[in-house]
């Protein structure tokens, strides 16, 4: 019996493998199907890690002065680095300078001496420019001129966490748009920003946010308005296709796309197009009266242009 059992068990295992292996290969929960090592190792947990790293980047943006999950986070609902980059709508309220409140006890008061205790942003010099008890910002370390020149470049320190966040969750669109903004706007790395956005677009081909950001690069850095217009029009089409049917569409993105298209059309004196996009801008704007004023101005410009137009083709005396 003892001698026959191992071969018997081996045969049973072999038989089970032949039936289980095809089932496992076709099973949707099979991580081995993914070519991504992180997806295999972490599964869906990588999204939680990606979000953690995105928040970590914002904590770096504040040089470590950041609320924990136990603190009042009303002033940090939207990461400031994303809000400053216009990658997300700013939904923050409350006091961002004093989310800790008054010390609860002597240990709390004592412990605050060992942690960053002032609200600063890296693009404004970070820990070099902060206030103590008197509330007046002052500097430590390098000379003020050095800070002025290099302070905003310190914003590069948020990039590793953003890159890690994108690697863990390629579907998190705001990671690409936020990173691209800081790369191109504060560090002058336009090519890197564009390449990163292209990576994002490959992972999210229907993202109107990434197309919009690519349009900004084309317009502001490449000085190619035709390409920018094409990208923004595609972004608008994607927005209308995917956001419009939603019960709560992303009006912040519509506002951005429509406003940039309207301003570009105004710059190129395409008045009818401009008025069309101003109408969309007005619909998405929290201040429609201001856009209405702009519409009136564009109407006036169009009227003036149509009066001037017949004189231009015949400049000869």
């Amino acid at each position, binding site marked *: 019996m003892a001698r026959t059992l191992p071969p018997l068990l081996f045969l049973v295992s072999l038989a089970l493998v032949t039936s289980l292996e095809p089932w496992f290969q076709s099973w949707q929960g099979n991580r081995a199907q993914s070519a991504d090592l992180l997806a295999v190792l972490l599964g869906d947990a990588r999204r939680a890690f990606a979000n953690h790293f995105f928040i970590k980047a914002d904590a770096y943006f504040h040089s470590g002065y950041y609320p924990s999950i136990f603190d009042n986070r009303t002033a940090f609902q939207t990461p400031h680095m994303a809000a400053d980059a216009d990658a997300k709508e700013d939904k923050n309220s409350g006091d961002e300078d004093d989310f800790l409140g008054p010390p609860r006890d002597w240990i709390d008061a004592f412990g605050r001496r060992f942690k960053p205790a002032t609200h600063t942003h890296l693009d404004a010099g970070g820990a070099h420019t902060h206030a103590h008890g008197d509330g007046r910002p002052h500097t430590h370390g390098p000379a003020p001129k050095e800070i002025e020149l290099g302070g905003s470049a310190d914003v590069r*320190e948020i*990039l590793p*966490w953003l890159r890690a966040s994108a690697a863990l969750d390629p579907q998190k669109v705001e990671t690409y748009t936020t990173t691209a903004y800081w790369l191109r706007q504060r560090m002058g790395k336009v090519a890197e920003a564009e390449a990163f956005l292209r990576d994002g677009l490959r992972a999210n081909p229907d993202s109107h946010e990434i197309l919009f950001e690519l349009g900004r690069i084309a317009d502001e850095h490449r000085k190619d308005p035709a390409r920018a217009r094409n990208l923004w029009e595609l972004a608008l089409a994607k927005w209308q296709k995917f956001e419009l049917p939603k019960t709560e569409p992303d009006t912040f993105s519509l506002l951005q796309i429509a406003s940039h298209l309207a301003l570009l059309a105004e710059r190129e004196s395409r008045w009818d197009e401009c008025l069309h996009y101003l109408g969309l801008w007005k619909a998405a704007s929290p201040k429609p009266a201001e856009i209405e004023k702009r519409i009136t101005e564009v109407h006036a410009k169009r009227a003036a242009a149509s009066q001037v137009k017949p004189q231009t083709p015949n400049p000869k005396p």
Partner: protein
Amino acid sequence: MTAALAIAQLVLLELLRRKDVYVLFFLTGLITLVAGAANIFEDARVVRYVKEICLTLIWISGFVLAVTTAARQLPAERESRTLFTLLAKPVSRWQFLAGKFLGCWLACGVALLFFYAFFGFVAASRERDVDLAGWFQAASLQWFMLAVPIALALAGSLVWAAASSNATLTLVGCFGIWLLGRHLHKVALGLPEPAGTLLTLLYFALPHLELFDVRDLIVHRWPPVPWLVWLGALLYAAAYTGLILNLAWLLFRRRALN
């Protein structure tokens, strides 16, 4: 005092012979260097994430080294029966305990010296200015903080027979305080009675190891802590260590050796 110093010297030599510290140092170095080699958008001046990873590994290594070294002292002496020989000679139990503590603490200090030298090398290779005062404060605060887990592990080895269970429980406790200690009072305020009061009592009774963690100040280049505050923190650690060692001595004094 001479007897305590002799015992401390033996502990220090034992740590140098063991491989724990070398393995921890190698792992810290390897992970830090691999992280530092990452290409972050072709920018070689990005340094803060490397500093944070390195300092976090130093903190974890510090805890592991301190607790595992301290937790095995008494069980090892008891198993090899050298405890009886030592205490039979004119070495009091207090001297024995003080010697063991001093040895573990000095061993941690020596290890931290190498760890922080490596950290300084990594940071200085990418940063323009060197924050020597900040690094000194970080290393000294961590060294004094480690005195508390060492004392806890020594006391624990009088309560739990096995070194492994003592080390595990002490490490869990230390990591818990390090990560959550500062938030206990906030959580307690939102809890119903009597849980709120109990958690508040726990908050005030625990040694707050997280106070000594100045990683954020170092990583983000904040100015050093005022020196009087730094001194206060060292005294806080010394007071807790003295208290725990006294409790350990009381336990040890009444404990039958066999």
